[in-house]
């Protein structure tokens, strides 16, 4: 019976061979890229004062795509001054319903340009085109659309209290969902009446700077949105600038802590969306094929470059073999390769550095005695790629079970009782997200209550929505993004 799937009879295995191979199906539309991107400050694209640029490369081919302006402290200063001026003279005074109209326009324009944004995102970041096309870009537009409607309804967020925007908000975003993280940051900030200085991640600046073009097309008043590309120092300059009254950061816990330290002597408001090491807990009564989908989606979505990735699978001991067998069969049909191919399931690792980090941690996993399995698929000769990888025989003390790998690497642990599952799930300084799979409703509610995490996906995983608050407990950060709870973080309440 299926509960004890045959491991003993290899003749009974399914054959996922090459009988019906897919031809390449590349996305070929023009992403309308410029060879050089300047900084978007005060409504215009301006070269950096120091005249410095850095190359952004396509991680799938290791070829240069464009030169990106490197903003230094003086450029950041110009951007903050422009934002402050826009806040005082236009945006802060504008009635909410008018602000909302600009956000609606931006949402619509993102939809108009969806295809070129999707291609640019995939070129620059390496994620599969089907994800940037079906998830990142539409979800970014949805965030603007959702928050547009809030702009004239802010008083409902804190009834009976006075609310006001902070003024200039400094935002630093990561490379895993470049445009979407921009939307998560800019849409609520603008809806609340703030102006923005945003620093995109060094390896993925293009869609953020293209967003500057959208702002121009939308006729957004100059200085309301400013995009300053650069490296860590640029981000630090944004965060520490005296004009940024509130800062919002998404990235690693390590960097988040250092930013918090750097702001210790200030009165700045902060929100932090940091790392995670989520437990995805599968009980023996779960709908197993859907659980396997959730496991796959949880750890291989966006090559595992997801802070809320379900990187620790906790599976009930009685079904561990069956789940593992199903999982192996499922990843046999995952397609790793050219991110621009419409059939690619796992694209390129975002950068050489990230690939090295993943490789290191996987080697450590092997050295620590965990058992490694990957789907053995062929990888492109050039570019940064990593096979979907599963570790069994993992214990909580293993580094692969404790550290955020941020790659397509799953650690599988087992448990026997709900209490043991909770104990293992919570045995981490992180607390961003978790998954629970069971057919028993009351158990879902109990587990969801006991798991210390900001998002719990029950019988699903990696779902996002503008109306749904997202953010962590413990060292996964504080503050929420999305929903009414997230929006209020962009307002001062008196």
């Amino acid at each position: 019976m299926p509960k004890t799937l045959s491991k003993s009879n290899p003749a009974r295995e399914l054959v996922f061979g090459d009988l019906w191979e897919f031809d390449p199906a590349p996305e070929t539309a023009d992403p309308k890229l410029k060879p050089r991107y300047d900084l978007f400050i005060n409504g215009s694209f301006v070269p950096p004062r120091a005249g410095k640029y850095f190359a952004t490369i396509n991680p799938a081919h290791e070829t240069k795509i464009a030169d990106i302006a490197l903003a230094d402290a003086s450029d950041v200063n110009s951007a903050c001054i422009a934002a402050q001026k826009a806040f005082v003279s236009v945006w802060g005074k504008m009635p909410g319903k008018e602000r909302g109209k600009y956000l609606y326009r931006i949402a619509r324009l993102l939809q108009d340009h969806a295809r070129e944004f999707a291609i640019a995102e995939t070129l620059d970041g390496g994620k599969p085109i089907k994800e940037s096309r079906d998830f990142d870009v539409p979800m970014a537009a949805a965030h603007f659309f959702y928050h547009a409607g809030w702009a004239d309804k802010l008083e409902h967020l804190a009834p009976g209290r006075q609310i006001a925007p902070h003024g200039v908000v400094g935002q630093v975003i990561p490379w895993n969902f470049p445009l979407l993280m921009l939307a998560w940051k800019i849409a609520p900030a603008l809806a609340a009446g703030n102006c923005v200085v945003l620093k995109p991640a060094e390896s993925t600046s293009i869609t953020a700077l293209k967003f500057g073009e959208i702002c121009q097309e939308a006729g957004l008043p100059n200085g309301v949105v400013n995009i300053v590309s650069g490296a860590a120092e640029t981000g630090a300059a944004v965060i520490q600038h005296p004009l940024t009254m509130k800062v919002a950061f998404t990235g690693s816990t390590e960097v988040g802590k250092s930013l918090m330290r750097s702001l210790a002597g200030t009165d700045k408001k902060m929100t932090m969306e940091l790392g995670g090491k989520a437990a995805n807990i599968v009980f023996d009564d779960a709908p197993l094929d859907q659980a396997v989908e959730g496991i796959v989606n949880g750890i291989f979505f966006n090559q595992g470059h997801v802070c809320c990735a379900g990187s620790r699978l906790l599976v009930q001991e009685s079904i561990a073999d069956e789940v593992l067998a199903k999982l192996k069969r499922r990843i046999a049909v995952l397609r790793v390769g050219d991110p621009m191919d419409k059939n690619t399931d796992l694209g390129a690792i975002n950068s050489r550095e990230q690939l090295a980090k993943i490789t290191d941690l996987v080697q450590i996993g092997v050295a620590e005695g965990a058992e490694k399995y990957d789907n053995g698929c062929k990888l492109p000769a050039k570019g940064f790629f990593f096979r979907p990888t599963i570790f069994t025989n993992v214990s909580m003390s293993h580094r692969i079970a404790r550290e955020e790998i941020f790659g397509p690497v799953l650690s599988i642990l087992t448990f026997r009782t709900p209490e043991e599952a909770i104990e293992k799930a919570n045995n981490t300084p992180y607390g961003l997200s978790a998954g629970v799979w069971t057919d028993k409703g009351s158990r879902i509610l109990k587990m969801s209550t006991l798991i210390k995490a900001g998002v719990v996906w029950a019988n699903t995983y990696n779902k996002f929505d503008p109306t749904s608050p997202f953010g962590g407990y413990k060292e996964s950060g504080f503050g929420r993004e999305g929903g009414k709870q997230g929006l209020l973080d962009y307002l001062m309440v008196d």
Partner: protein
Amino acid sequence: MPAAKAPTSLRRLFDEIGTVDQVGIEERVATFTTRSLKKKSKVFGLRLAVSMVDLTTLEGKDTPGKVASLCQKALCPHDVGDIPPTAAVCVYPAMVKHARKHVGGTSVKIASVATAFPSGQAPLKTRLAEVRAAVKDGADEIDMVINRGAFLSGEFGRMQDEIAAVVEACGQATLKVILEVSELETYDNIRAASFLAMRVIRPGDFIKTSTGKTSSNATLGNNQVMLEAIRDHFLATGIPISMKPAGGIRTAKQALHFLIAVKETLGDEWLNNRRYRFGASALLNDLVRQLEKERTGAYQAPWNFSEATEGY
């Protein structure tokens, strides 16, 4: 063949075979529709689909003449291009002997719906007699309907015994067990009924979604539930069961989505017409039309392919 010991309640059956989450499986099948097939892989898929069609006519107004033209089309779906014959023709029992005149001795099988299709609401004796008559007239394959009433009222043993009796009446003929998924309603029920049926049929026999005579028919969702049931049954017992979605698959694009589901769920060994069929009538026209488009590079007008006259 005696029925295997039937579980006494759905609850116990689900403990054994597991349940299905509706939203999750529908998300999974949605990913099949985003696969992009180009050039050779598209032609391969379209030709494979043609070879899997059970070209069907099941109407009160069927005549020997209609069946004759159906058979011609099954043998030679299009006069140009290298297009394979379909897997079978599917007709009412009264039409079997007429079909035999045209496709007997060819690769095109004769399938016949029997067992008081589509409701199954006739005494078992009558249903079995119908099966035997169709087989005697030359049917290679029998498409039966399960006793949904028995399933829904929890009489699993009765449902399985009746299937087992039909298996026996089939003799050498292949059996296709129609679950009539729209009347089972939930994916959990479809999975349960699939297992109950698979446990009493023979290797190479089919489970099939629908009669095509109710409000909803084959969907990627219920197809997937059944493919996964077949997979789990095969991995547990080594018995390969075949699959036939029927009704509602009208376009080549849909058929390719179903085939991608097969490729990614059951793998290469199910990508042939012994293991997978489409129960369809209009589908063949669109498959041929798309193949012609691939061959000529030009989009084709429908009137070259369809016997329907309603197009303009």
